[in-house]
């Protein structure tokens, strides 16, 4: 087990190694992941929680099959949502693709190996999703969408911010909770899968847990999270204050 994992580590050292990531298991996993996205979204709606968690499948594929497989899953997931539920989902496919891509890249850098690293990944995914949703929100919807995020945008605009800053700020406010929870749930699922199953997928080495978590590492991670949050607040302040 260990040997195969090490061998695959060598092969996939570059995250641009695309061909290897798309084996039959990946292709079969994709529709299941897309269905997981929708079904988990449905469960969360039943529980009336203030998150969507509708990209767990995308993150799973990104982590275990590489960034490009994750990006493709995200893009196709939104396309299929558009084909079956409401064409309103179609313009958002780049955001879903970015979520898959970034979660794959995070996993390749070893950020899916313990829970606190996963929190960091979730935060990075949220930042990427927020940034990529801004141009779509502006170009397609003129900035204010008809949902909870749109309400926050509207509030910020009313209190004197420019529309671009308001869209940025409201995305940054809403994304992290959703994406960190998504990443943690995906991590919990991956931990529950058997090693035999994981070994059939392209990148099992991405979820091998660290044997021992040293105290120093944990402190560094907490520091990184705090810094990221401070940076985000700083960024928010600059963005909203500039108007």
């Amino acid at each position, binding site marked *: 087990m260990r040997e195969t994992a090490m061998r695959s580590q060598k092969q996939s050292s570059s995250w641009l190694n695309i061909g290897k990531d*798309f084996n*039959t*298991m990946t*292709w*079969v*996993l*994709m*529709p*299941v992941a*897309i*269905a*997981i996205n*929708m*079904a*988990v979204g*449905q*469960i*969360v709606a*039943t*529980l*009336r*929680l203030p998150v969507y*968690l509708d990209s*767990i499948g995308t993150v799973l594929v990104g982590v275990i099959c590489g960034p490009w497989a994750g990006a493709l899953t995200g893009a*196709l*997931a939104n*396309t*299929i949502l*558009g*084909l*079956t539920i*409401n*064409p*309103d989902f*179609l*313009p958002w496919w780049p955001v879903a693709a970015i979520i898959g891509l970034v979660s794959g890249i995070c996993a390749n850098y070893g950020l899916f190996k313990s829970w606190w690293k996963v929190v960091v990944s979730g935060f990075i995914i949220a930042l990427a999703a927020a940034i990529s949703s801004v141009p779509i929100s502006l*170009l*397609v*919807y*003129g*900035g*204010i*969408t*008809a949902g909870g995020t*749109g*309400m926050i*945008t*509207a509030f910020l*605009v*009313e209190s004197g911010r*420019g*529309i671009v800053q308001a869209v940025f700020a409201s995305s940054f406010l809403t994304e992290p909770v959703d994406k960190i929870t998504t990443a943690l*749930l995906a991590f*919990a*699922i991956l931990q*529950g*899968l058997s090693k035999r*199953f994981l070994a*059939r997928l392209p990148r099992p080495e991405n979820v091998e847990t660290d044997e021992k978590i040293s105290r120093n590492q944990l402190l560094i991670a907490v520091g990184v999270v705090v810094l990221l949050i401070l940076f985000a607040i700083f960024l928010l302040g600059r963005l909203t204050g500039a108007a």
Partner: protein
Amino acid sequence: MHERLSFFVKRDSPIHRLNPMTKAVMALSLVLIAFLSPWYWTPLALFLFVILPLSLVARVAREYWNFILKVILPTLIILFIMQAFFLPGESRSIFEVFGLEITELSARLAFRNVMRILVMISSFTILLLTTHPSELMSDLSRRGLPGQFAYVVISSLQIIPQMQAKAQTIISAQRSRGLDTQSSFLRRVGGILPLVGPLVFGSLVEVEERAIAIEARGFTSTRPKTFLREIQDTSFDRALRWALIACVILTLILRIWLS
């Protein structure tokens, strides 16, 4: 088989008989023209003079209006109200309530945005009402899209209803075992794992079997494949596609030229 999940309505109409690719190009060009056009009234004109006639010619007007009125219109109304109130724009105020005002400029902008979105959703709705997704995918793979893409889309369409049924079963099962899905916030958060876990693990177990099954049926074979159903592609289809692409390019040129 799983018609419930797709919009597709089986009718006989000139639009249904068009090549799926032509209809996809038509939907995309309508969207692009609505968003790129330099004239304010283009989206409204497209809706009145292209999309409404199309829905009648395709004989799906009833289904189209059903979807638009029930699902899209409420969203669009909320969108219009929010945008009209909150989009920044200094001009003559036309309506004021609780210190919030709709100005002429913000109302104009809001109306344009709403019409654009209406055109976008309508043109895709008509595409989906007249084209079965699997027909579109098989036409795309005939034109060189790797078969794996078609597999992902088509099998998603089959797996999603199964998975939703499974999610409903798991919710009922866990409830009958006493899982609290309705009371306090923390209890509901605690409900995520016992609901998501069984669903995800159960469906991932099937993945390996399915992979072996489709590999045994030549999924990874690179030899040319034959198609069960022939899809017509007439010279009219081709001409229509080029005409639509020309319209989009013309709009783009006008947009750049006039700005």
